């Protein structure tokens, strides 16, 4: 029975780093190649040695697909392609291909900034890796090889994020990557057609959460920023160069405009320009509102947000600064934080997750006295806020996507075990499909029952209905015909039509059998005795004695010859067609019993 195998190397019951191996109809595909930012050693990458015990990765894997540019989905890619040695094709959408290297480069810079970092990819490796990437458009069917095809669908979440359908023959898998079923300020909602895959591999970050309205969170955020600025404080927002930063920029920009605020907003990194350039370039990937207003005014050309200079941090008065990196663990954002931390009028807003050990993690968990380098103690008096703007589908959204795609099986990844368990039961109850949630390293096998559509010729259908009842969708009906497999389609037609269509002549298949009977008479006399015997037994059949000395019963032909060594034995050669198989067998057994004496 055909089967699909799924083994997560990452994202199996966790949200660390996505890397899922799928085996479908003899093809092996790697879905995402993410990195875990919580480790400083090789544990940050998936353990690729498990992909194949023998042989080269490039020979084993047919392709790698990257769902979006977040590092927990693409961060290990340069390591995999340039250091581990995978040299095969890599697919991602156009925006992901454009933005991915910016984030990888950003992270590389932060990582090698630290001492003792080895075994990390270089800028050249990132470039070489990106050159191997084949970019795909939404809804474009890409033929990886003759059998394997992939297709991208819009996933929301971040610019360029896509869900991928992987198809071999009539078997298929859909991998959602991270997705969002509700449109946000600059992106639309995920969408997929009713493709009925054998398996839907879905993220489940918010498996048990029904997210409060995004508007509330936005209002909260703006209120906090506004209050701080009003009382003359400074607001630091540590971000990664791309993604959430753009969303927050739009939010502040419109708010500033509406409220006619004057406090400056700065973006500290030189990368913004490029990031905004891509947001402009890939305008078709944003939501309808942005696309509509694009002609009059580009949402990403910010009037209030200006480039930051290091000197500005010391300026008096209120300001808002976006600075990288997002976890306050090095570089510019940490430098500004040190300057502003001691003033209770100021505020830092952490818009994303921070790994253990970073200053971001420490202040989020409430630590207010931080030991910095040189045993200096930094007292944090500024306000610390956490604002989640993660664009993942919540439980309702996940169910909605399942309803849309109608998969035969569901497999949950990228979430916590407990929450997944809850959602798994809900899915199984509501949709009556199997739902799996393998841990990392565990293989889930799904047996598929590929349904193959067959067209039936009208002639055959008419003939069959003429002899039987009218077709009924609920009752299976037996049909006889010839199956033609041609031009990637299957058709059931009548044998005659098949012969005609394919230009073939029918072969006549005849069965033969020799029956020995004891009869010392001449051959023609034996034939006559046989004729009379058969005529007497087979009254309903046409038995004929032909001039050449042979006998026919319907299509059955009987000829007699004397045995070469024993003249007293006659050999009857019986031959019949396939259609008269029953009569032929009967006749042979009859003759084997010998001829009755009375017919002499």
């Amino acid at each position, binding site marked *: 029975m055909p089967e699909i195998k799924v083994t997560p190397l990452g994202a199996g019951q966790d949200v660390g780093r996505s890397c899922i191996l799928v085996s479908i109809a003899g093809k092996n595909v790697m879905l995402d190649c993410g990195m875990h930012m919580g*480790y400083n050693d090789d544990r940050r990458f998936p353990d690729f040695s*498990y992909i194949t015990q*023998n042989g080269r990765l490039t020979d084993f894997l047919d392709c790698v697909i990257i769902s979006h540019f977040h590092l927990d989905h693409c961060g290990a890619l340069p390591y995999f392609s340039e250091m581990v040695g995978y040299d095969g094709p890599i697919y991602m959408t156009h925006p992901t291909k454009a933005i991915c290297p910016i984030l990888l480069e950003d992270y590389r810079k932060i990582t090698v900034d630290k001492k003792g970092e080895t075994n990390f990819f270089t800028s050249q490796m990132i470039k070489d890796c990106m*050159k191997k990437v084949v970019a795909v458009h939404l809804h474009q069917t890409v033929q990886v090889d003759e059998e394997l095809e992939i297709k991208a669908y819009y996933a929301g979440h971040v610019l360029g994020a896509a869900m991928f359908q992987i198809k071999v023959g009539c078997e298929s898998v859909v991998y959602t990557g991270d997705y969002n079923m509700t449109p946000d300020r600059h992106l639309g909602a995920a969408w997929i057609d009713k493709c009925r895959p054998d398996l839907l591999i879905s993220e489940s970050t918010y498996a048990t959460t029904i997210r409060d309205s995004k508007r509330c969170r936005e209002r909260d955020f703006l209120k906090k920023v506004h209050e701080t600025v009003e009382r003359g404080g400074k607001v630091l927002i540590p971000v990664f160069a791309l993604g959430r930063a753009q969303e927050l920029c739009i939010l502040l920009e419109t708010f500033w405009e509406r409220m006619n605020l004057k406090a400056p907003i700065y973006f500290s990194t030189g990368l913004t320009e490029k990031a905004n350039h891509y947001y402009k370039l890939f305008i078709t990937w944003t939501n309808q509102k942005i696309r509509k207003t694009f002609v009059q005014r580009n949402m990403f050309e910010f009037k209030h947000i200006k480039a930051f200079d290091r000197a500005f941090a010391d300026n008096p008065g209120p300001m808002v600064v976006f600075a990288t990196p997002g976890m306050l663990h090095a570089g510019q954002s940490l430098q500004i934080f040190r300057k502003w931390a001691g003033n209770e009028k100021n505020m830092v807003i952490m818009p994303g997750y921070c790994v*253990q050990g970073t200053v971001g993690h420490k202040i*989020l968990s409430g630590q207010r006295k931080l030991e910095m380098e040189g045993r200096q103690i930094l007292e944090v008096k500024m306000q610390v806020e956490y604002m989640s703007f*993660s664009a993942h589908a919540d439980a309702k959204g996940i169910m909605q996507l399942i309803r849309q795609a109608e998969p035969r099986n569901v497999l949950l990844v990228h979430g916590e075990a407990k929450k997944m368990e809850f959602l798994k039961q809900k899915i199984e109850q509501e949709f009556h499909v199997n739902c799996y949630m393998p841990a*990392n390293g565990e293989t889930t096998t799904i047996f598929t029952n590929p349904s193959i559509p067959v067209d039936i010729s009208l002639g055959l259908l008419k003939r069959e209905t003429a002899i039987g009842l009218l077709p009924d969708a609920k009752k299976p009906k037996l049909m006889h015909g010839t199956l033609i497999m041609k031009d990637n389609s299957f058709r059931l037609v009548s044998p005659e039509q098949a012969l005609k269509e394919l230009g073939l002549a029918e072969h006549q298949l005849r069965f033969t059998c020799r029956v020995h009977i004891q009869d010392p008479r001449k051959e023609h006399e034996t034939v006559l005795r046989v004729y009379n015997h058969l005529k007497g037994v087979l009254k309903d059949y046409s038995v004929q004695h032909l001039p050449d000395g042979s006998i026919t019963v319907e299509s059955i032909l009987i000829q007699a010859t004397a045995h070469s060594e024993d003249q007293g034995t006659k050999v009857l050669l019986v031959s019949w067609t396939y259609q008269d198989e029953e009569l032929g067998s009967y006749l042979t057994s009859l003759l084997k019993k010998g001829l009755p004496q009375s017919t002499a």
Partner: protein
Amino acid sequence: MTRECALLLPGVCAALADPRQPGSDDTCLEKLLDWFRSMTEFDPSVSLVQDNPCLTEFITSILALPEPSPSILSFTLRLAGILASSENRFQHLQQEKLLVRLFGVDGPLSSTVWEDASVRSGWVEGVHSMMHHQPALHFLCNGGGIDVIFALQGDPSLFVASSASRLLVHMLIFSVESETTKPFSAKDFDWPVCARMIIKHIEDSLQSSSASHVEQSLKLLTSLFSSCHSRWTEVLWLGIAKQIESFLTDETVQAQRMLANLLLNMAWSPVFCDSEGGLWALVTSALEHLTPVQVGPLAVGILRLYKCPQDVRIQALTVLLQPMDCILRAASQPLEYAGLLDESVSDPAAVESLLSSKSSCASLLCQTLAHLEELLSLVYLRVDLPYTSLLRSLMTILQFCNGFLSPASPLGSTISRILINCFRVQSSALDVLAALSERKGCDTLIGSLFDVLLAYLESPNTTPTVLKKTFQATSKWLVRLHELSCSTSQWQQTEKILADVFLVLQKRLCSPCWEVRDSSLEFLTVLIKCLRDQDEFRQSLLSSEVPRLTENLLEDPESYVRASAVTAVGHLAFITFFAPELPVIGNQYNKENTIAKLQEILSKDPEGFPRRAVISMFTKWLRQGCTGRMEDTERFVSRVIQAVEHDLDWEVRLGGLELVEVFCSQTICQLGLPRCSSVPVSSAVTSSIHQNRSLQVFCRAKLFSFLFRSLCDCDKPVGQRACDILFALRGNFYPTGTARDSQETGELPAGHGIAWLQRTLRQGSLAQNFPTGGGNGVDFEDPESMMLALGTIDLEELHDELNRSSDHVEKSPQSLLQDILATVGTIEENEADCY
């Protein structure tokens, strides 16, 4: 363990054991285990568990939980294993019966949590950690734990299964090497109990009808023979050799691939490769019996061996070359046999059938080509490779792939139909082709080889990835072509080929695809680096449109391309305006123009790559002495420093410091400080003048302001580099022991400023903050002040401070414990939210 950590630990243990608390971040638990591992690794004493009773209390409380969370239970198992890694601590834990309750049959093994892979994984890892002394071995073997490990070899989790296999190998080696009492004897070897149990298990599994059991044992043996090279492994082998030999011919056993791997690992072991134990006969038989796909890794592995009978080597090579032989035969006319091998080891029909099947042709060829590339990368190859035929076969494959060859033979036409546009095979073949260029002996085909390469370079069907590989192969063969034309004086052919290459390069430089433009520029840079001394090359290049197009690409919209263009233009300069004799055709190249363009990129390009490329090119120019006379160089460096010192990209600033470093050493060398001078300088006066001249140059170039400010850079590597340079400068200006006492500085005119500078730097390197407003009275361009600064500022202290890992706080165990404690009671949502 520090006192602070010892104080924090009980709280952490209590928090982890509290089922009401949300589970701690997995990375925290991992890092906690790392910490315990580092503490126990070299300390077998019991003090860790004795002084910190909270550890055993933690284990006890986890065992008392009715439903512990799988992740915390897994953590506990691993922690207990680490603690039990020394005999003393093992006994301590045993006294409280903790290990039995954790690892015994009544522990998690028999509860429902065992269904969770992380618990099983924790159990195996825990056992592995403790398996460093005999009591642990006996504890496991007597308590039935070993059967659990046998079963876990077939675990549905890949991680658990492979850990179990590794554990068994470790136990077997440990058991034999720690428990054997009698001296080794091959005839009468007395296996210790635990080893005997494992060996019995291996033997039983090998005879089992279950393919997975056979596979597990083969895996175990492979890993054993690769990690242990003791003589007892041969005794073990002799007991199972017959059984394993039978697998080679028994087609019902699907373990051939594993078998090849096993044999290869045995061949690497000195125990087997030297003995008469029949390994080579088995390898020979494997080379004959395994399918072409299975045999490849074995064959290439054999060829890498140092010790191996020559006939086996030749056989391995023959097996490896078979697909290439088949390709050559398929491409030739029926009567004209032009294969690559005189005879074959196994049935050539098997290779033919694989090559004529759509599903296997490309994969067999890719595998073979990858092996050949590996072989060509070896410095010492102990067999002769038929280079010419190999090259011919590669060219044939490449021609099949682009449809330039469709032979009449049925096999040939089938293969060519399958391979057309197969980019995987193209890539692999081009990799081998590049590697082959370094081997001499295939020069007769060089002309036709370039026909093939040029066809690829020209074809619009060549994908960017394949094109990049074609460029790589072409550059290597162009170097080879040049060497050849030097020896044969066949300049005409070389010139023709070069002209064709530049013609196609012109087109590729204008490609709409950035990957292609970038690879073209990289190709050009490589060519200039390798061939810039050759007249024909220079002439062909400079008479083409390539230099002009390259310069245009400095304004490419793609930053990667701009950066590559900068590097290419920088290298082009070596053969145009920096060339000792300016070529006649190169006189249209305007040095000032180009330098101005690059300087503009350095100060204005919105992205880091091009700016980094410029600074690195400038440094290269400076190193090669291309920046002109001393004064010109001084002006040049000064301009560069001004452009980079406020760059947002720390790697550009770092590049600037590299340039400064080169400039300093060149200046000092030129102006002749005692260290560089060939004549010993006796007079202090002369030395001081020389010093002053260098110092004046450095001050005029505004070098000190850049260096001192860099000490406070928010990015660590910049500060470190600046400190290194200042350190070196002080070494030059102040011979050992002559540095000033900082006490004295206050009395000097510039003293106030310098004292301020020292204070600022001390705080600044910590706070990463150099006042933006200026130097508070410090004149960075005044030689006297700077001499004083170099002499008085405590660079050693700064150096040590800067060289401390920037994340030492982040990585410290105390910080980890504090973080875990601080997380207690925080909102769970923060944990789940990801990026």
